[in-house]
């Protein structure tokens, strides 16, 4: 890969695209597949790394806002390239109430499928997707690495889905 390609910012999948299916580990002996959630909205939050301060804020915020997401019957999935054991420790420490999936092997494959992989640093980008009950991406947002995108955009997208 040439250096120009490696340094290019990720170009994430746009609304209207079919959300690529995946199966990733949520615990050492359990997996989660996107297709498990057909029939209800899914929020996917790709993030660069467990433990980094902004991620902590962002994932902790989603745990706190969970009752609002549940009003839309939405499932929230966090995805990074961290291994499952660090995910478990991080989730326990931050009292997260939704699965963190490990895009570990082959590294970043799911992040790449969503255009949310930063080859330069070998991490997922900070990207959000709201997927409708038929598996179509209806909203997506790429945030700068250091900026917590919050929950507002997700809630607005879920409201729009409900009205549609």
């Amino acid at each position, binding site marked *: 890969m040439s250096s120009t390609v490696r340094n290019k910012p990720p170009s994430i999948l746009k609304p209207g695209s079919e959300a690529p299916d995946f199966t990733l580990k949520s615990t050492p002996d359990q997996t989660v597949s996107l297709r498990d959630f057909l029939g209800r909205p899914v929020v996917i939050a790709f993030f660069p790394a467990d433990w980094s301060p902004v991620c902590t804020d962002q994932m902790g915020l989603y745990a706190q806002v969970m009752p609002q997401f549940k009003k839309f019957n939405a499932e929230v999935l966090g995805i990074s390239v961290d291994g499952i054991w660090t995910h478990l420790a991080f989730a326990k420490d931050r009292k997260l109430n939704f699965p963190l999936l490990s895009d570990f092997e082959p590294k970043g494959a799911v992040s790449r499928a969503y255009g949310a992989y930063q080859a330069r640093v070998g991490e997922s980008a900070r990207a959000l997707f709201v997927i409708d009950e038929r598996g179509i991406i209806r909203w*997506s947002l790429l945030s700068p690495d250091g900026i917590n995108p919050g929950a507002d955009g997700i809630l607005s997208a879920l409201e729009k889905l409900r009205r549609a």
Partner: protein
Amino acid sequence: MTQKYKSPRLTLPAGERDHFEGPSDAPVVLVEYGDYQCPYCGAAYPIVKKIQKNLGKRLRFVFRNFPITNLHPQAQWAAETAEAAGAQGKFWELHDFLYEHQSSLGDEGFFARYERALKLDLAKLKDEVAQHVHLTRIEEDYMSGIRSGVNGTPTFFINGSRYDGYPEFGPLVSALEEAEKQST
């Protein structure tokens, strides 16, 4: 549409529903979303006081609740207590008391100490906290924060725009004075 990131604005403007200090015609309005158990809010508390002293009547300060209950077990109780004191006309007294005694929040005897200090009707206050009388207002504060890009505490808004700088005296005063210039 795939959207580009932009710095958020306050979706629920500061108004009469809010707890405020400073005149209604102040050229600068500083809104804080805070959690009484959050150490960063505790650190920001004396800074805000100093800023209020410094800017005087040029500033209106508003405090809204953003209790991070999954990390701070005392935050919800503290927020409800401050609101219940507010119903007795003593919101700011209790707000200040909570931040000034943050390390002993929720200890045995905490109630007794602020009762003595603030001369509140303690039975009424305890009853309102137990009945969650002020919960709706706290939830309204919280949701207005979520919808305005509050992602942690403390988060400040200056004349409706989220302040993304450091919550330190110098940078905050510069940003407030900049907003003042733009508003006149």
